[in-house]
């Protein structure tokens, strides 16, 4: 491809956009609306996911040792727990720490005061954190294999609910975004089709003077890229500060939220959405223009 041709494609693409300014604005608005809706959905789903993950990591596994456990056994079990795959953190809880924890939780210093020291009936235990809730079953099996363990406790009901929720959010998210994506492609293709239809004689004439298909396509591809970039940039520029604002408002008005879960930071989420959004915009624009002109190239 020659440089003079590249210049020509860009010039033609841009002047095509300016000449058909109404169509251009319509196309940009469609892309912008679609990307905006997808961005909002991504923010919602991304946060839901992150919150579920947070809850998951709060659900730990507690491992109780036999009553007669000595420091040898404690060290051995600790090592073995640490070696299990997907285990992220193993914390030893002595009977005294467990008792202090209970006292605090029940707010019952006096009732429990008789159990201090020698009289403490609580066993040695470990709190085990894991990376992801899906791996819990496997880890439990591995723990059962370790000698010297009295029993293992995990919040099975909570785990099941979280696993289900996670699945639902993933499926709904993927389906929702896929549907939105398809709707966007259809709308954009139709918008660009009208713009191409208005220029079908022009395309026809180009064919008669010996233009190759790509010579005709390139200016439309340039148009598609410009429409895609502008159409993606507008909703992204709007939704970034909008998201930050929404998050801070949510914290302000529902302060309990802070204890349960926290929202993803706006940089954290938008550093992924911006490049994806721009790519999606360009892909939509280019796909829309190239598929729309195909029909008119067959002469």
């Amino acid at each position, binding site marked *: 491809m020659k440089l003079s041709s590249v210049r020509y494609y860009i010039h033609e693409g841009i002047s095509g956009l300016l000449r058909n300014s109404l169509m251009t604005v319509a196309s940009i608005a469609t892309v912008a609306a679609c990307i905006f809706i997808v961005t909002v959905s991504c923010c919602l789903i991304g946060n839901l996911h992150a919150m579920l993950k947070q809850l998951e990591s709060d659900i730990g596994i507690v491992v109780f040792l036999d009553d007669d456990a000595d420091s040898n056994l404690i060290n051995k079990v600790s090592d073995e727990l640490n070696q299990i795959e997907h285990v992220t953190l193993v914390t030893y809880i002595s009977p005294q720490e467990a008792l202090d924890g209970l006292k605090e939780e029940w707010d019952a210093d006096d009732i429990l005061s008789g159990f201090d020291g020698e009289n403490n009936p609580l066993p040695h235990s470990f709190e085990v954190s894991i990376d992801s809730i899906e791996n819990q079953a496997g880890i439990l099996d591995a723990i059962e294999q370790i000698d010297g363990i009295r029993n293992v406790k995990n919040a099975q009901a909570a785990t099941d609910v979280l696993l289900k929720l996670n699945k639902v959010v993933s499926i709904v998210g993927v389906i929702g975004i896929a549907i939105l994506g398809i709707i966007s492609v259809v709308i954009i293709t139709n918008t660009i089709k009208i713009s191409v239809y208005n220029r079908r004689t022009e395309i026809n004439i180009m064919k008669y003077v010996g*233009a190759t*298909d790509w010579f005709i396509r390139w200016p439309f591809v340039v148009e598609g890229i410009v429409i895609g970039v502008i159409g993606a940039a507008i909703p992204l520029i709007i939704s970034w500060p909008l998201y930050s604002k929404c998050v801070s408002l949510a914290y302000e008005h529902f302060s309990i939220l802070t204890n349960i879960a926290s929202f993803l930071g706006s940089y954290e989420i938008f550093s992924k959405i911006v490049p994806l959004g721009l790519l999606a915009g360009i892909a939509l624009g280019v796909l829309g223009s190239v598929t729309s002109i195909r029909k008119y190239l067959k002469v």
Partner: protein
Amino acid sequence: MITINNVSKVYPNGSQAVKNITLHIEKGEFVFIIGSSGSGKSTLIKMLMKELDPTSGEIIINGINTTKMSRSQVPYLRRNLGIVFQDFRLLPKKTVYENVAFAMRVTEASSRHIARNVPTVLSLVGLQNKSRAYPNELSGGEQQRTALARAIVNNPPILIADEPTGNLDPETAWDIMYLLDEINKRGTTVVVATHASDIVDEMQKRVVMLNHGNIVRDVERGGYFDEA
């Protein structure tokens, strides 16, 4: 230059537009294709420019069998054919200059080359003063002269025209025919389908007459109504 071998065309609706035609056109010839409405002239022309493919037979242009040509080769065939239509087919949003330059740009010609050739052909067709005008600011004759300039700017060996004077008054029609003759004298092979009997009579060129898709007359120097 052009060889048409046993070419037939049946449209999908079953109408037989061209029936087993064989025709040779030598380099540098000027040929009128005549015949009443519906006799198959446009169908033949469209097959020459590969807008349509023959149902059977083959067409060889400039030594290349276009019947076997792949779709991606068609643009390169068309760069060897100057094509002129009855309805001019200019790009309405480009000036006369840009319309002509466009045909060169398509071939990825250099800007320098374009800047040299376009004014030359515009003055050849007498439009040197209209280069900045848009098609809707031109008379029919001027529009057709622009189309002619566009057709010859790449210096194609062959020029094909389907009723180039069909939309013009008789006097302007003569201007265009003189120009075609001029282009032919510079070495280009010219094929013109037309109804303009007076012009055909006057110019005394080779005349090929079609009737219901058959060649019924082919004379070296003929008129419109001569007996076969």
